[in-house]
C-alpha cells in the first residue's frame, strides 16, 4: 500500500475542510472497500480523513420517518428494532450483503460509496475508463457476465455492487450531505449516476461533501417485502442480480408497490413503470409476469450476460411472490 497522510478530526467541519482543500484526500469510515482498493493500487489517496470520531451513528425516528446516521454499521442497522419494524426490506438487503465480519465494519455511508467489482476496474493492468478515464473499457468486448443490462454507455458497462442501496432506492430514501457550501438533501434516485461519458464519477457528491445520514419515509411496506439475491454461492458473494420488492396489499389487491433491481446497472435500478402497472391489480403470478415484462423492456445484453434477460424477469416474479406469501 502506498503511504498516505492520516488525520482524525473530531469536528465535522474539520473533516469537510480537509477534503475541500485537497482533491487527493478521501474520507475513511469502515474501510472495507477503500483499504482493499488501496492495497491493489486501484485508489491511491494521498491523505485519509478518518471520520470515525464524528457523532454520526444514531438510528432514530425523525419527522415521519427513520433517520440512519452515516456511520451506523451495516450490522447495527440490520438488527435495529426500529429498522426491523418500519423497514424490514432494508434489513433483509443488508443481511444479504457481505459477511458478518464485514457488516460489523462497513457503514451506511460507505456502503453507498463502494466501487464496482468489475474485474477490469480492479485489475490495474487492464483498461478501465472508471479507474483511468480515456483508457477504454475492458469489459465491453471482454468477459462481461456480471455486467449491466440497463443504462450503460460505450464507456462503461459496470454495475453498482451494493445490496443496501437497492433497498434504499426502492424505499424512496433521501441522502443527507454536508459540504463546503452547506447542507443539502439528495433524493436517492439522484445520488448514484449512470456512466455516460464520465464513468469515473459514481455519484453526484461534490468535492468535500460528507454523507451524514439517510432518511427513509415511513410507508406501508412493513410486512410484504422481499429482497431476492441471486449469486454464485449461497452467501458471501456479490449479486449477479437482485430484486427488492415491497407491496402494500389489501385483500389480495395491490394498493402500492416498490421495485428495484441490483446487479443490472451502474446504479440501483428502480422499476417505476412496473410499479405503476401493479397498483390496483390482484397480487397474482400473472400480474407479476406482466409487470416483469414491462420492467425488462429496455434491457440489452452483452456477450456473456444474456442469461440476465431471463434471470431478471424470473427474479422479479419470484421476489413479488415471496413478498406476497409472507404471513
Amino acid at each position: 500500500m502506498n503511504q498516505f497522510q492520516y488525520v482524525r478530526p473530531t469536528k465535522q467541519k474539520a473533516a469537510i475542510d480537509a477534503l475541500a482543500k485537497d482533491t487527493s484526500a478521501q474520507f475513511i469510515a469502515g474501510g472495507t472497500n477503500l483499504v482493499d482498493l488501496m492495497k491493489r493500487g486501484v485508489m491511491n489517496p494521498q491523505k485519509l480523513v478518518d471520520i470515525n470520531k464524528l457523532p454520526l451513528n444514531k438510528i432514530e425516528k425523525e419527522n415521519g420517518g427513520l433517520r440512519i446516521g452515516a456511520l451506523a454499521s451495516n450490522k447495527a442497522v440490520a438488527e435495529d428494532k426500529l429498522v426491523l419494524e418500519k423497514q424490514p426490506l432494508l434489513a433483509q438487503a443488508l443481511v444479504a450483503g457481505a459477511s458478518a465480519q464485514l457488516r460489523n465494519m462497513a457503514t451506511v455511508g460507505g456502503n453507498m460509496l463502494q466501487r464496482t467489482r468489475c474485474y477490469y476496474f480492479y485489475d490495474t493492468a487492464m483498461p478501465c475508463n472508471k479507474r483511468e478515464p480515456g483508457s477504454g473499457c475492458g469489459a465491453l468486448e471482454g468477459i462481461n457476465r456480471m455486467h449491466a443490462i440497463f443504462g450503460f454507455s460505450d464507456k462503461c458497462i459496470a454495475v453498482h455492487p451494493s445490496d443496501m442501496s437497492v433497498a434504499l432506492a426502492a424505499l424512496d430514501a433521501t441522502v443527507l450531505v454536508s459540504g463546503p457550501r452547506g447542507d443539502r438533501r439528495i433524493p436517492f434516485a439522484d445520488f448514484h449516476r449512470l456512466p455516460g461519458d464520465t464513468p469515473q464519477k459514481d455519484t453526484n457528491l461534490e468535492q468535500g461533501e460528507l454523507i451524514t445520514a439517510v432518511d427513509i419515509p415511513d410507508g406501508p411496506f412493513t410486512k410484504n417485502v422481499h429482497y431476492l439475491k441471486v449469486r454464485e454461492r449461497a452467501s458471501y458473494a456479490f449479486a449477479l442480480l437482485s430484486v427488492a420488492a415491497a407491496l402494500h396489499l389489501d385483500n389480495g389487491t395491490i394498493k402500492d408497490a416498490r421495485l428495484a433491481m441490483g446487479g443490472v446497472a451502474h446504479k440501483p435500478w428502480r422499476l417505476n413503470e412496473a410499479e405503476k402497472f401493479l397498483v390496483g391489480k390482484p397480487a397474482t403470478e400473472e400480474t407479476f409476469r406482466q409487470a416483469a415484462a414491462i420492467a425488462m423492456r429496455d434491457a440489452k445484453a452483452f456477450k456473456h450476460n444474456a442469461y440476465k434477460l431471463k434471470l431478471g424477469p424470473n427474479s422479479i416474479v419470484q421476489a413479488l411472490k415471496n413478498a406476497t406469501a409472507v404471513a
Partner: protein
Amino acid sequence: MADEKPGTPPENAGHDGNRRDFLKKSTLLTAVALTPGPVVHAAEAAWDEKVAAAFEKVPLKLEVNGVKHKLSVEPRTTLLDLLREQLHLTGTKKGCDYGQCGACTVHVDGERVNSCLRLAVMEDGKKVTTIEGLANGDKLHPMQEAFVKHDGFQCGYCTPGQIMSAVACIREGHAGSEGEIKEYMSGNICRCGAYSNIVAAIQDVKNGGQKV
C-alpha cells in the same frame, strides 16, 4: 505498569546508539504513562487534529488479549500486520489479505472483524482479542476443544479465523440452526472443506450451553 508494554523496540536496538535511543523513548513513554490523565488526553486530542505526514509514525494505544500496548505505527499498517509483525502474534493468519477469506478474523471491542482491512491506527483505544487470547492458560476455550473433537479442520490455516468467528457467531445469537450457522459463518472460507465438521463443532458448543 507490569502489563504496559512499550511498543516495538526499534529493529536495530542492539546498536549502542540505538539502545540509547530506545531508552530515551522508553523514558518518554514512562513519562507519558505517569502524566495525569487529563494532560495526556489533551495531548492526544491535539494529535487527532494534526495531520500525520505520510512517512510519520503515529501513536497507538491498543489492548491485545488483556495486555496494554503503547505502539507507534505507520498509518498504512493494517491491524493484521501489526499483530503478526510487530506483536508477533502469528496465530491470526493472512489468507487473501483482501477481506475475502476470513482467516484474519479477530474481535475488536467484542465484534468480529477482518483484521486485514482495518488500519491499525483506526483502532486506537480499543480492545483486541486474537486466537492466542481465547484459551484460559493451558485450558482450551470450549470452541477450540469442539474443533479438536469434531475434526473441524484439515490443514488448519483457516482455523484461527474460523474459531474466532464461531465464538462470535454464538455470542451474537446466530447459531440457532444449521442454516443460520452456515449463513453467519459464510465469511470464513475453508479450502479443505471441513465445513460440516465446523458446523457440528459450533452446534456442540451451542447445545452444550457452555459460556463462550
